[in-house]
């Protein structure tokens, strides 16, 4: 059983790497294909967009059998591993030593920082900082999430 689990881990590890590379390759290939000189009618003007729902769906369809196969192996591996799982004996590692902060000083420090935090929040809410957060959060900055 133990040997089987070890083999399973190696197999799923290799498959994980392969699936990651597959995804990276597809993304890079879509980018390269979309930026080939043939796809430009004029400098900076593309004939076809680099990505489209159809292109992504078509690429995913190509790798789907590999991905579903990988997921099936992972699922089977998880079940097998769960059945065979043995708790590892923890090894001892000497912990680093530090001087603890005296309790009284710690309490004073916490209270001070708490007061500063409260003051900053109130001040920020008054000067419009809270509204800024809301405005940014209810709108999508396309570039910020990687859309472009």
């Amino acid at each position, binding site marked *: 059983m133990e040997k089987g689990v070890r083999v399973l881990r190696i197999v799923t590890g290799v498959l994980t790497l392969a699936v990651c590379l597959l995804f990276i390759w597809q993304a890079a290939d879509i980018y390269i294909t979309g930026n080939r000189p043939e796809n430009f*009618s*004029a400098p900076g003007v593309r004939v076809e967009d680099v990505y489209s729902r159809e292109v992504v769906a078509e690429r995913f369809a190509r790798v789907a059998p590999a991905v579903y196969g990988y997921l099936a192996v992972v699922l089977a591996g998880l079940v097998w591993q769960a059945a065979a799982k043995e708790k590892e004996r923890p090894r001892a590692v000497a912990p680093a030593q530090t001087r603890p902060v005296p309790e009284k000083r710690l309490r004073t420090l916490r209270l001070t920082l708490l007061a500063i935090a409260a003051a900053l929040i109130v001040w920020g809410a008054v000067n419009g900082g809270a509204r800024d957060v809301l405005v940014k959060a209810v*709108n999508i900055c396309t570039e*910020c999430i990687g859309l472009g």
Partner: protein
Amino acid sequence: MKKTIKDYLPTRRRLIQLYAALLYNANVKGYLRGGIFTGASKVLCVPGLNCYSCPGAVGACPLGALQNALASSGARGPWYVLGILLLFGLTLGRTICGYLCPFGLIQELFHKIPSSKLKKNRVTRVLSWVKYAVLAVFVIAIPLWYMLRHVPMPGFCKYICPAGTLEGAVGLLAHPANADAFSMLNILFTRKFIILVLVLGGCVFLYRPFCRFLCPLGAIYGLFARVNIVGVKVDASKCTNCGLCVGHCEMDIRRVGDHECIHCGGCVDVCPTGAIALRAGTHPLRERAKDEAPKALRKRRAAWCVALAVLAGALVYCNGPWGEIAAPEPTAVAAAEDELPTGPEVGQRGPDFSAPLYGGGTFELSGTRGKVTVLNFWATWCTPCVNELPHFEKLYETYGEDVAVIAVHSDLVTEDVDAYLAGFDYTIPFALDDSGIVAAYGGSAMLPQTIVLDRDGVVVYNQVGSVTYEQLEALVKPLLED
């Protein structure tokens, strides 16, 4: 030892992680309609890393908020976000990483995939300092540097954040309603998608690699390791320095409770003397099973009842009709002059509007009839918007006699736009959307958006996303030749 059903049930920590992920992303209808939540609860930052552009997100991401606050610190100090981070760091510290971070949960689930696991070692310990460099460069230096150039630039969100790519970008793109958004994907998305794949792939072999090596939020919370109130504490009088706790931990800690410790409590049951406990101040939250007081179970049940009530409340509030801020209703839509329907779609007649101009006066769309008209929806807080303004300026300079260009600022204003524009020499007219112009042209929460109308006021282009000067010229030139 034979396993019982209990061995297969999720741990208490896993349940809290799931609960936090659900609570942060309670906007179920966002997933169904492919849009984001626009309710007032987004004024609050959630403690963990959870992209606020995720369709389900009902709170703001503290890291995104911090970068944006730094980016606009020329107008006002980032006190609000700093106060919130100080409060979170002081009260919970990196306990947030262990219990309340959805991206931490995702990494831990990926780590369950069977594979040979790489244990912590000297290299990983050195790499664990990289997150402080990421914090200094991408979260602090880049936004501040670009702030000097009046460009809001959340460096970490833009170049690295895999949580934003997964929850925000992929989350939105997965919905058919956002099929148009694919058109703006290019190198930025490709790069961030590859980072996401590397991080998730890395999770299979390493325990929480993003938290250990890259997460600037963890780096911030780690600064509070010595003072945070809730966390794993060691009773020095019971500790024998056996080192089993440090050896058992998968993070790069040198001692329990240091800046790398995520207070997951994994060491609590390993400690042979019961010296370690998860505490809130002096009050124990989790001790070794055999040391737990009989009252603890009752208290825990009561806490779960309150937590579930809060979750139910959040689900009702966010998915009900009253949760969101209503977008301004479009007004002043002129009656169609011919059989062409009025609307934002290509081939329809663009809805007429008038808007107050910055610097005085009013812009009337009907006044541009006979010219090709380019509408640009932008905002001072939108990075790609301010980056593409020079392209519209150049277009206006080149074709100004035949092309009308108008840049309409979103109705959500965070700083003095007049003062902002004073820093540039733009000659294009800038107006404020005070009458639902963006909504009338099919705009949503996504900026920037560009619309091109032909000489008859018919929409020939309407797209969300950045445009280059070449693209603008290619759109306008054929219309001028007609």
